[in-house]
């Protein structure tokens, strides 16, 4: 019995310690936001890596999801003669949920992993130590530009994902399910509210922040050696994915529960 309690206690303490470490990491990252020197070149590089080069992945993910969604809603809706709602449900499903969540998860796979592996390798090969001896703060030089870039560029990616997702639904709707093109678009536009769109973009920003932060955090915590790099990469992606899904629930609750 006491052993069980001890195990529970140890796990709880470990969890609290991890949350504390992460909170300190976030605090330190943000503290560099307003303290010079700044590294605009690193920031620009991160914008391109995270934003521009993610476009193909985001586009394809959204396109296929939107198309599949239209098929499912049509099939499900036809059971009680509600096939006509395809444009509306595709729009709301993509913009409110699937757009931000799937783009977030794809970014976790693509960006979090590469950030974690890069920073962990730098740590293992003493490049982080070398930065310090060259009077460059690793959090300022490595973490802040990536986290900032991801937070700013993710709403754009999510916005693009939403549009392409809706377009995927539109393609399937008009080509396969016999919807009228103009009516499909009108139904979509009339149905979406400003809150839907704002929630989508806010989710994007939060997920981008989480994705880049987890990559940097686990990269910086990496153990020595190739195994350390592997473990850091794996943990960062798992943590980012779970935190994104949890944050999605909380944000959905905050935006739409009323």
């Amino acid at each position, binding site marked *: 019995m006491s052993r069980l309690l001890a195990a529970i206690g140890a796990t709880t303490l470990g969890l609290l310690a991890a949350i504390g470490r992460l909170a300190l990491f976030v605090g330190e990252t943000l503290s560099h936001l307003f303290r010079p*020197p700044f*590294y605009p070149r690193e920031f620009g590089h991160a914008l391109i890596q995270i934003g521009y080069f993610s476009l193909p992945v985001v586009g394809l993910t959204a396109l296929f999801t939107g198309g599949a969604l239209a098929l499912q809603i049509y099939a499900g809706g036809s059971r009680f003669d509600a096939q006509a709602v395809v444009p509306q449900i595709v729009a709301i499903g993509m913009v409110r949920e699937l757009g931000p969540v799937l783009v977030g998860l794809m970014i976790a796979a693509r960006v979090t992993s590469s950030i974690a592996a890069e920073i962990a390798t*730098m740590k293992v*090969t*003493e*490049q982080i*130590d*070398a*930065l*310090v*001896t*060259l*009077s*460059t703060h690793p959090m300022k030089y490595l973490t802040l530009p990536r986290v900032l870039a991801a937070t700013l560029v993710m709403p754009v990616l999510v916005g693009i994902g939403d549009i392409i997702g809706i377009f995927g639904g539109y393609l399937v709707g008009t080509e396969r399910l016999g919807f009228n093109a103009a009516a499909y678009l009108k139904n979509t536009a009339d149905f979406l509210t400003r809150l839907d769109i704002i929630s989508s973009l806010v989710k994007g920003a939060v997920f981008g922040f989480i994705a880049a932060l987890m990559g940097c955090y686990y990269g910086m915590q990496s153990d020595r050696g190739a195994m350390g790099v592997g473990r850091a990469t794996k943990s960062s992606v798992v943590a980012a994915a779970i935190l994104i899904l949890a944050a999605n629930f909380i944000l959905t609750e905050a935006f739409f529960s009323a």
Partner: protein
Amino acid sequence: MIRLTDLHKSFGNNAVLRGVDLHVPKGESMVVIGGSGTGKSVLIKCILGLITPDSGVIEVDGQDVTEADRDAFLARFGMLFQGGALFDSLPVWQNVAFRLLRGSLKRPKSEAREIAIEKLRRVGLSSDVADRLPAELSGGMQKRVGLARAIAANPEIIFFDEPTTGLDPIMAGVINDLIREIVTEMGATAITITHDMASVRAIADDVAMLHAGKVRWSGPVSKMDDSGDPYLHQFITGSAEGPIEAIR
């Protein structure tokens, strides 16, 4: 200039430093020798604050380093890492000129590049390597790029972690001369870690030998050969017979 008092550092139950005392006067070249794994690299990382010691005092210019302004403190240092630690995403010249391209020492790009190429020349590398990536260089070349980076901003205090390991004898001689020159001409204070006894004799004013977590022997390089210390003697002669065990 640099004074260590009773420095302790353990990793788990591996007690690496167990009360190190060391003094390096200004403008002097100190060479630290000692068996592999005795904590030489850990020692200089402690001075730089890359590793936090468990206890003990580190003073630079009479000031406790934990109380010093960290940026001002690091601006005076240059460090060559044992593994080079070059930034593999940046071309060689940007590695060397890293400090000159950003922060308080920032200067125009063309000027930084010129300085980088001059420093590369001093470590025996031609300007063709300037635009290559570190991964495209041999191990010894990478080491020398690391050396060029360490001296690029003319630091007052320089640490060299095995500067000649992996170099051919001629190049090792060039690097030894360079380190000696930096100390005598630029008046820098240097701590060099090396296993190469020829290097020790070429570079050192003073020698300290680390063994079992402490400074076993220290003194001027001229006294090294007749120290009367069996540990030091075994190390210098490289003999398998002696008080230092071959399996560690």
